[in-house]
């Protein structure tokens, strides 16, 4: 039966297109990674294997500075947005529908719907006024902006986890005279933990990768790794950019693989 279905489902040429698409999807990234190990200056001619670009990137003080700043922002934004998203998910999932619930849901998903450039410009205008009024120029603006657009990324996996959770366990705890807080700490939270970790990782990756909003919100001298890379790309192409990109890609893939393993449905 199954084999007959598959024959009927085969459409000529589709598999070929799909394979070409997969190759095209990975080829540019693979080239970028390969040439980060090039001994020569070229991005097209192979001169032998070397770690020179990684060594140069490692010794580059500017790279160190922007990397630390990126990690500080992504770490803060992921933490703040995950806490806020967890609370919001608890309030809007598995509950009797209440007035304004849809409004909260729309607000949380708003960053996914508005083009980044529009949010970026709006934040530039808003923060410029605050900078003039208060004189504060610090990282707070970037952390606030990142925390806001990371909320939907943290919220969705947590909500998905909550929806799949067994309500009876919490009822059982309540039946055994556990206080609501005790039930939350000892039953809900441990069950929810994989969703929270997954949401936090997604938020971290999203913050770490952001270019557009950071570019418009940052004050002078507040480059993050992506905005620094953008400036380098416009100046010249060296293997150093490839080396940094490769490390960033590797980090993302590791986090995402963990994310998939955490959220995978047990069959």
């Amino acid at each position: 039966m199954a084999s007959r279905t598959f024959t009927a489902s085969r459409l000529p040429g589709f598999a070929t297109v799909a394979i070409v698409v997969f190759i095209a999807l990975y080829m540019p990234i693979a080239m970028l990674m390969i040439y980060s190990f090039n001994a020569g200056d070229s991005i097209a001619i192979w001169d032998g294997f070397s770690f020179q670009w990684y060594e140069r990137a490692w010794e580059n003080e500017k790279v160190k500075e922007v990397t630390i700043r990126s990690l500080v922002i992504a770490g803060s934004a992921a933490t703040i947005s995950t806490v806020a998203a967890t609370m919001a998910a608890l309030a809007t999932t598995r509950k009797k529908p209440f007035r304004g619930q849809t409004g909260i849901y729309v607000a949380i998903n708003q960053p996914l719907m508005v083009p980044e450039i529009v949010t970026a410009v709006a934040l530039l205008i808003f923060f410029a006024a605050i900078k003039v009024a208060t004189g504060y120029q610090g990282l707070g603006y970037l952390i606030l902006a990142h925390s806001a657009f990371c909320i939907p990324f943290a919220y969705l996996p947590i909500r998905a986890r909550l929806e799949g959770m067994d309500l009876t366990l919490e009822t059982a705890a309540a039946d055994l005279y556990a206080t609501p807080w005790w039930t939350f700490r000892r039953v809900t939270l441990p069950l929810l933990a994989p969703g929270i970790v997954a949401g936090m990782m997604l938020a971290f990756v999203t913050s770490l990768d952001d270019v557009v909003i950071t570019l418009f919100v940052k004050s002078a001298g507040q480059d993050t790794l992506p905005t620094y890379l953008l400036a380098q790309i416009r100046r010249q192409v060296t293997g150093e950019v490839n080396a940094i990109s490769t490390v960033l890609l590797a980090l993302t893939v590791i986090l995402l693989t963990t994310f998939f393993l955490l959220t995978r449905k047990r069959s």
Partner: protein
Amino acid sequence: MRETEATREAAQVRRNWLLSLPALLLLAAGAIGPLFIMLIYSFLTPGKYGNVEWIFSLDAWRGILFTRDIFDETLKLADAHLTIFWRSVRLSFLTTVFTFVVGFPTAWFIATRPPRWRAFWLFLITIPFWTNLLIRTFAINQIIRNEGFLNTFLIKIGVISEPLNLLYTDLAVFLGMTYVYLPLMVLPLYAAIERFDHRLLEAGYDLYASRLAVLRRIIFPTVKPGIIAGSILVFIPSLGAYVTPRILGGGRNMMIGNFIDLQFGQGRNWPLGASLSVMLLVVVTAALLIYVRFANRDRGHG
């Protein structure tokens, strides 16, 4: 008894709002609120050195389509602006169509794999989607630039003698956007195809339908929600694209996003930047609303 139930429910609702409050405050300050301030700025006068002067003016809204002649103050259609809008819409449309043309066979391929393997193929599509857009665009830049891999390779095998000037063209932006937004087309298409009842195909073939007829009369109509979702998901970020046209289109082949950016840099016209942003937001929201209506209607039929 009844009253206590009502109060308990009211307390529950209050607690739900309280729990949602931190997220709502963050979003209000860091995403939604500033949009309203931007709307106000679109009705102000540009300051000499950037920023604004608090004088009411409709110039920014007029300025989207018209320019004032320097000499006689008459209004003319702003050709440069129209060129940028047209390029944005055309490139976004082409990107949407092309991602569908290559994305549909890909989604079909994944959906017809044995179930155990589907997760693996899906993962392969998802990984590029979550990896840094800047780096993916930069990878394309490296491939197609004059001293890049493509030109070096083509010259080496003797197909061309001079490098093709691919970088900083509309074609480069189109290729780049297709590359970075393709997963957004494949994922909703896959979701629709996976639910597709493959017995319908056998029924079609049993009734002597050709492969093309099966595709057009059975497959496309049934997976239409996926097609619409994918198209909207690709079209919206394409229209608002900033990074890809900046890295692959250079300074001359601007799209709306880069044009907005320009108003806050050299252009020194914040109100125009604000009005353009509001316009982009309205177009994108309209596209989303159309999508939601379609999605709901289709659900109603199912």
